[in-house]
């Protein structure tokens, strides 16, 4: 079920109402049933995968905990990893490896061609698999005691607000809240939850779905457009992916909050970042902290010799890129971000000197310049993330570098996209920037009335300018 569908607008208030009518001890049952229903509204048969994941990981975690022999603990831990990564491999990566292997065989003249698997990528598989993997790893490392209650554990895996696109929660935060679903709700939780839902819908329906029309058209056939078109399309994609994904996270976090559950913040205005490392502490926080804790630190993190540190960063970002999808473009995107960080570390002394010399007395100007440079770096990496293949990404970069050519084509695309769409898109983007700025300055949440006014404005804009086309969220494909 999509958040941006009429079904959800009926489903969620109904769940909320029943939740508060039911005695506390039955609430988890309601949430579990609702979560399965939510997922099955997409493809009922794929719920079997989640059930398998629940049962196997539940058993593995408890076995790891109760087992005294370290070799048996290790064996069961590996079994759990094998199952989780195997499931991801089969559904997400098999065809990628298969295609590349076939390509390799054809290049070397070996006449062998294995057929592709005809499988649909189950919605949210990367999210719930990573969530459950972190749980088993934490149990294995004695950081967490396993959950004995199968129902609560199942709810931890399937909790509907964050099931299909995160935030990827840690068991330590979520399970304890699900165990005790007492009425902890207060004015603050209701208002902030509702505010989050409204801003989430605004980002998705007013901005992301609108600019996606332009983005899709240009990325489908960049050869037909000028550099200026492509530059705008990449800018719109940067906006789209942020609004689409953070919009989803906002709706998820807001919905959970109305149910008395506090999920982690997944985005903190990432485009206001003044460096790439800051960007990664503000963008898809639940995933970046996952990779930090379960990939980067186990590799040695920064407590190693310098070259190994840089290597660890690159590897972590390559894996993060590959998590997003089985395509060379995602690997390239991960590599680019890893390289940004390494280059940032290599030149940090030089950067600081230049920064102090130029903007030592104008910190605000320095901040704005850094923000702009960070955005431009992220912007170029998005080209690889969205392009069909690496060649196309380079083609688009080349076109952007020659902005003033083929400008006669510009008129056609603007006419196709529509003047109205263009105007509304820019208006909504500016409104969002203003909102996030005021939020960061703690002006919006200062008083009840400032919250009421901003939320009402966003509601009016969303209801009158949003498009209820029920377009899927970008991160559902991951």
């Amino acid at each position, binding site marked *: 079920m999509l958040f941006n569908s009429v079904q959800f607008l009926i489903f969620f208030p109904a769940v909320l109402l029943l939740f508060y009518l039911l005695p506390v001890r039955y609430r988890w049952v309601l949430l579990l049933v609702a979560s399965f229903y939510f997922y099955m509204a997409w493809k009922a048969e794929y719920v079997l995968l989640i059930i398998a994941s629940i049962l196997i990981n539940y058993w593995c975690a408890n076995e790891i905990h109760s087992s005294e022999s370290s070799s048996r603990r290790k064996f069961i831990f590996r079994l759990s990893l094998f199952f989780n990564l195997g499931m991801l491999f089969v559904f997400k990566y098999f065809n990628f490896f298969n295609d590349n292997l076939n390509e390799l065989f054809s290049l070397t003249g070996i006449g062998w061609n294995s057929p592709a698997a005809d499988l649909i990528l189950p919605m949210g598989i990367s999210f719930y698999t990573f969530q459950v993997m972190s749980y088993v790893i934490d149990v294995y490392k004695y950081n967490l005691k396993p959950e004995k209650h199968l129902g609560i554990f199942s709810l931890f895996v399937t909790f509907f607000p964050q099931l299909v696109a995160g935030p990827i929660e840690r068991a330590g935060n979520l399970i304890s809240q699900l165990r005790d679903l007492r009425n902890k709700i207060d*004015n603050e939780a*209701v208002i902030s939850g509702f505010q989050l839902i409204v801003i989430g819908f605004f980002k998705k329906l007013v901005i992301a779905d609108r600019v996606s029309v332009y983005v899709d058209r240009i990325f489908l056939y960049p*050869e037909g457009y000028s550099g200026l078109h492509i530059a705008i399309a990449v800018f719109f994609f940067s906006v789209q992916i942020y609004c689409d994904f953070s919009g989803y996270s906002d709706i998820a976090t807001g919905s959970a909050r109305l149910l008395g559950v506090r999920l982690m913040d997944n985005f903190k205005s990432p485009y206001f970042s003044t460096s790439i490392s800051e960007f990664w502490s503000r963008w898809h926080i639940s995933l970046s902290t996952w990779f930090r804790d379960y990939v980067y630190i186990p590799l040695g993190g920064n407590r190693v010799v310098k070259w190994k540190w840089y290597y660890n960063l690159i590897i972590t970002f390559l894996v993060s890129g590959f998590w997003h999808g089985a395509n060379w473009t995602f690997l390239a995107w991960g590599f680019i971000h890893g390289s940004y960080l390494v280059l940032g570390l290599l030149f940090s002394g030089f950067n600081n000197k230049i920064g102090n010399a130029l903007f030592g007395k104008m910190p605000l100007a320095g901040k704005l310049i850094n923000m702009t440079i960070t955005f431009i770096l992220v912007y170029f990496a998005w080209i690889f993330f969205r392009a069909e293949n690496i060649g196309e990404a380079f083609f688009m970069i080349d076109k952007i570098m020659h902005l003033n050519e083929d400008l006669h084509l510009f008129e*056609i695309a603007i006419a196709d996209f529509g003047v109205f769409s263009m105007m509304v898109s820019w208006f909504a983007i500016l409104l969002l920037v203003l909102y996030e700025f005021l939020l960061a300055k703690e002006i919006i949440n200062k008083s009840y009335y400032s919250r009421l006014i901003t939320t009402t404005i966003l509601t009016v804009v*969303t209801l009158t300018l*949003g*498009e209820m086309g029920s377009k899927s969220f970008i991160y559902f494909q991951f």
Partner: protein
Amino acid sequence: MKKSFLFIAITLLTGILSVIAADKLLQKGFHSTNEDVIGKLNELMADTSYYQVLCLGSSRCLSHIDPFLIQQITGLSTYNGGLNGGTLIDYNIVLDAYLQKRKPPEVLILHIDFMTLEKQNISELPRYFPFISNPGVYNGLVDYEPSVYYVNHFPPLRVMYYYDLLKWIGIKSLAGIGARNEWQMDRGFVRKKVNPNGNWNSYQEAGLSEYLRAINRPLESSQKVEKCIQLFSQFLKTCEKFNIQLVLTSSPVIGGDKSPLYDETVRLMAEEAEPYKPLKFWMHRKDMDRRQYYFDHTHMNYQGAEYYTRELANFIEAEYVQAKRR
């Protein structure tokens, strides 16, 4: 808790009131526009002018059949009811709406193409929402999309389904701004520009091979085809009930003369229509020079439309008008 409920109530109430106001304004704009998309349905639902020939079909019908040229050659007043993205679902709705306020046309030209038996969804559903109170429209759509049901019960909800072009048409109409030339309808007909420098540009040329692959394949899903055939049979029943002379036609598209998809579509439709007697076929499938006659892969420009309409009109003149005189 009172404070938080008040917060939600005020926000939602303001939102709902703004949607109601926006809906009222857009409805006003929609009902006075002559711009394609909505203008066509406006005319079909509200206007009561009678036409002897009614043309139905998709965007190819919309831009390939010039009603004035047909009238000039045959003497029969003609209206082009083609709709962008139109499918058999649309044709049934439009025919029903047309017949609600007028006597039946003498001749109905149904333009078929390579999509006719493959599309059983509604391409541009929101364009019908301004007319959702019309029982023919509601009944014709409700089985396909749940949103039709919701909108019928709370019409202002439709504001959230209108895409930008529709909203823009409504706003422009309210402000008294007319349609851009290329979207200006004339008896339902939209002329695609003949542009010597080429609307046919590098973009069209590059996508050509992909398009040719698409139409050089057999029909895809038998389920879809079955559903479309059912809709076609419903369409034939309406024609039979009002004793309308039906002409099944198709206009040339690039590569259409060699398309198995086209062959199969025409064969299946002919088979279904066979028992219906007042029926004539006129298929024009030959390949024509794309730079001279085409606007894009699947639509001719006005020069192509003129060429095709002239031949179609001559056929109607010979087979219907002169036969009637005899």
